[in-house]
Every structure is written in C-alpha cells, then in structure tokens.
C-alpha cells in the first residue's frame, strides 16, 4: 500500500466517524428532553457534519479520482465505510447517547490534539479547527456523564446499562493496523499506542466521578475501520443516501 492510498483510507476514517456520529445526533432534533438540550445536541451534530465535510473533501483530493464530499458520503456502501463501530450504535435514550458521545469525544480529543501537529499541513489545519469544537464536545459529554451517573437512582441505572452496552466498542480506535502504522511512521497521524493509556486514565477519572463501573470483560469489538460493521450502519446509510440513490446524477 502506498502512503497516498493509506492517507486516503485514514481520511475516510476521520470523515466517516464525524459523519455517522453527526447523523445519529441529528436524529435527536425536535425530540430532546428539554429545548436547551435540543439546541446543544444539534450544535454537536452541526460541528461533526462540518468536520466530515472537511475530511471527506480532502480525502477526495488525495484519492485523485475526482470524487467530492457528496459522492463519498452518498455513494459508498456500508462495506466501504470506515467509521468506528461505536458511532453507529443507536441513540436508545439520553444515557446511551451521552455515554457514546463521551467515549468517542475522549478519544477524538486526544487524537486531534496530536493531529494538529501533523506533518501534512492540510491535515494539521483541519485538525486545529476541529480541536476547538471537540474540546467543547468533551466538556459537554463529560459533564453529562457525571450529572446522570451521579443524579438520581434511575439515571444512574440507565447510565450503567448504557456503559455495559457500549464499553465493548470503546477501544476499537486503539486496535491499529497497517494504515495507522504507515501514518504514524510518516508523522501524519499519532502513535495511537501512546494515546491509549491517557485515554483509559481520563475515562476512568470521569467514570469514577460519575459513580459508574466499566464492565470487566474487555474483549473489544472491532472491524469498523476495515468496513466490517454492525447491522446498524446499513439502515443509517439507507436513510441518509436515499435521495441520491433514487434520483441519481441530479443537482440538489
């Protein structure tokens, strides 16, 4: 695999994470527990879709086959998506949404904090801009972890159930492959192994303050980066891509 091919895949991973998570958060619009939170969660969705557009546009340029952000977002099937399994998990309730968000934000923040120093200037630029947004997301989701974990008995139970359900997806990011290694060697992406202990440390701190216990069996589900997804992604894409698929080659 050439560096260019690896970079293309790497950028798709970044773009797809943002896109699929943004898509999930958009589902909350008009249905959040309180009006102010509807605005807050939509804010996160907007930021993420914006980031997705940047990453996917750059990916298309790097690939060099003339594909733009929409062609990449709307015309790939699930086997060609490279997001983490975590972000395609369903909203379920506010607890699942917050746990999913926090587990992702903590990783995403550490990642972008390094990516802003990428040897690839374009990557560094997108990462620097995204980092400000991600920092806010992490603050938001961390606070909600604690608010709900240490709120009422009901909220605590819901949070524990959510954590039990989502924990198995929390470390997929750190299961590196050839692409991650090539990027680290080129200084384009960070060495994820160095970030992993920090991730666990910060997550443990928040879980502790939230009075939540992570499950002890730690087999981490994987495959998202390689295009092997859960059954959820197919449905997400069916909804997202419908118009482009039903009415091909039109301007919208």
């Amino acid at each position, binding site marked *: 695999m050439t560096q260019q091919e690896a970079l293309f895949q790497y950028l798709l991973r970044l773009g797809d994470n943002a896109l699929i998570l943004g898509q999930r958060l958009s589902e909350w619009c008009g249905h959040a527990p*309180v009006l*102010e939170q509807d*605005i*807050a969660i939509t804010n996160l969705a907007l930021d993420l879709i914006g980031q997705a557009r940047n990453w996917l546009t750059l990916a298309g340029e790097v690939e060099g086959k003339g594909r733009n952000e929409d062609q990449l977002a709307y015309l790939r099937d699930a086997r060609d998506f490279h997001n983490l399994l975590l972000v395609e998990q369903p909203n379920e309730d506010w607890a699942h949404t917050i746990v999913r968000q926090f587990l992702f934000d903590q990783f995403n923040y550490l990642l972008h904090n390094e990516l802003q120093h990428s040897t690839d200037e374009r990557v560094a630029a997108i990462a620097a801009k995204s980092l400000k947004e991600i920092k806010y997301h992490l*603050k*938001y989701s961390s606070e909600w972890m604690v*608010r709900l974990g240490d709120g009422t008995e009901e909220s605590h139970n819901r949070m524990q159930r959510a954590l039990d359900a989502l924990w198995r997806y929390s470390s997929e990011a750190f299961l590196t492959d050839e692409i991650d290694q090539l990027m680290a060697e080129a200084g384009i992406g960070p060495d994820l192994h160095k970030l992993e202990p920090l991730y666990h440390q910060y997550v443990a701190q928040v879980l502790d303050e939230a009075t939540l216990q992570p499950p002890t069996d730690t087999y981490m589900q994987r495959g998202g980066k390689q295009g092997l997804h859960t059954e959820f992604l197919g449905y997400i894409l069916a909804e997202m891509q419908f118009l482009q698929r039903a009415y091909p080659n039109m301007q919208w």
Partner: protein
Amino acid sequence: MRKNDANASSKKLADCILASFEQRPFFDQKAIEMNKDWPLWEVFIRAKNGLSHKHAGSLHAADAQMAIENARDVYCRRNEGVSIWVVESKYITASDPEDADALFEPAQDKIYRHPTFYNLPDEVKHI
C-alpha cells in the same frame, strides 16, 4: 360615616385591591419553587471587547455550567460574544416601576449635571 361616603370609600378600597392583584411580579417565585422546571437564568453577553455586557434573554438550566454552555449555544451562534454572564433570575433585584417617580424623576430637573447648562466661549477648545 353616611351611607354614600361609606360606599364610595369601600369602592375606592376595592379598586386599589384589584389594581394591586393585577400588578404581576417579575416572576412567580412560589410557582417556580414548586414546579420541576430547571431554574431560570438571565443571560448577559459582551459582544466584543470594549463593549459592556448586555441582557440577551433567559433560559432554563440545572446548574451554572449548563447555563453558560446553553447561553453560548443559544446566543452566540453567529460569532456574537466574547464573554457570558449568567445569573439565576431570582437573584436579580429590580426597582419597582411604581417608584419610578421617586427614583428617576428627581434627576430630570437637575440640569446642572448636563454640559449644555454651562455657557463657555467658543474660543475655548477641548472643553
């Protein structure tokens, strides 16, 4: 007291009581304490350095952190803000409009506080 006078004065009393019921408080403290709404916060935004904080509106939040974040989400979406203050509405003390006469009118006739009260020759600059 003769009957007519008694009627007249009790009508006047009834009017006053009715009028005072119609004066609504800024917010109903008791109702807010009894309901399950998150507390109400007033939001003040400094749009950019050099300007003072201006009242932007209010919102409901469970705690101060949330209030600041919500204020940013609601009032600063279009790059309008470098600083946010939030105060729980119950901590704002407002002057009573009924006292407007006593509070504000006396200032109106102290015209010696205004520059135009003083006549200076045009030749004197920078003053």
